[in-house]
């Protein structure tokens, strides 16, 4: 009896996970919050920012300011590939960091937002 239940359980679990797909993709490097805490408005220079965070992914120049833009994308993708029907979901979130410098290359402002902790493996092909 126990063997029969075990076999049935094994077959059941195999059938359930059959066709399951879990995938993950990332773009860029995660923004290091320890490095970010070392940047001080009004005193830190461009050199320090580049040493701590590396070269920016994008640069904006205007209004007597230079802006360094760093970004990081994280995506998780669950899927179900069945014999007759396939469902796939891809959930992507972004982190963005902007460091504003004045003409002398001193940090004037830092804007940072982190959304990547929200990204999950929820399979939701329907709904809003």
């Amino acid at each position, binding site marked *: 009896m126990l063997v029969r239940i075990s076999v049935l359980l094994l077959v059941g679990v195999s059938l359930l996970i059959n066709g399951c797909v879990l995938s993950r993709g990332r773009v860029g490097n995660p923004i290091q919050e320890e490095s970010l805490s070392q940047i001080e408005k009004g005193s830190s220079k461009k050199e320090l920012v580049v040493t701590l965070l590396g070269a920016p992914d994008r640069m*904006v*120049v*205007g*209004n007597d*300011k230079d*802006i360094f*833009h760093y*970004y990081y994308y994280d995506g998780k993708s669950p899927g179900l590939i069945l014999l*007759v*029907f*396939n*469902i*796939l*979901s*891809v*959930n*992507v*979130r*972004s*982190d*963005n*960091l*902007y460091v504003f410098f004045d003409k002398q290359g001193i940090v004037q*402002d830092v*804007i*940072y*937002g*982190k*959304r990547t902790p*929200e990204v999950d493996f929820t399979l*939701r*092909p*329907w709904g*809003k």
Partner: protein
Amino acid sequence: MNAPYARLLLIFMLCLGLWGCAVRRIDFNTPITPEDLSFITAGKTTLHYVVDRLGAPEEITAVSDQFLAEFKWSTTRSSSLNLGYLFRIVSPVAPTMTLSGTGINMQRLLILCDDRLIVRSYAFGLTDEHAFFEFWPF
């Protein structure tokens, strides 16, 4: 026809209907609604406060003596139906005859700030609305 056979036939027909069906969805960032922006007071609220509530914009650009912060989010829905799967009933080789459609609902919120990063105004971009399922490409 007795009941068990009718039930079997019904399940078989249902499987036929779903055969070769695929549904895909891509979500980029969390949608922002006009209600989410009710806390913004032009001339008072700072971009820092907006970022604390909504996350950071995808892009900041300099426009004359102001800064433009652009928030982006999207939902992409794609579905396909491979009619060639039906040939699997009668043939070991299934040809491919796929009807497929994709709809990308790209949405944007633009926030205009002065050089001290205080919000001056904001506006939503026009929304694209596509159907949940678009099998018919014509």
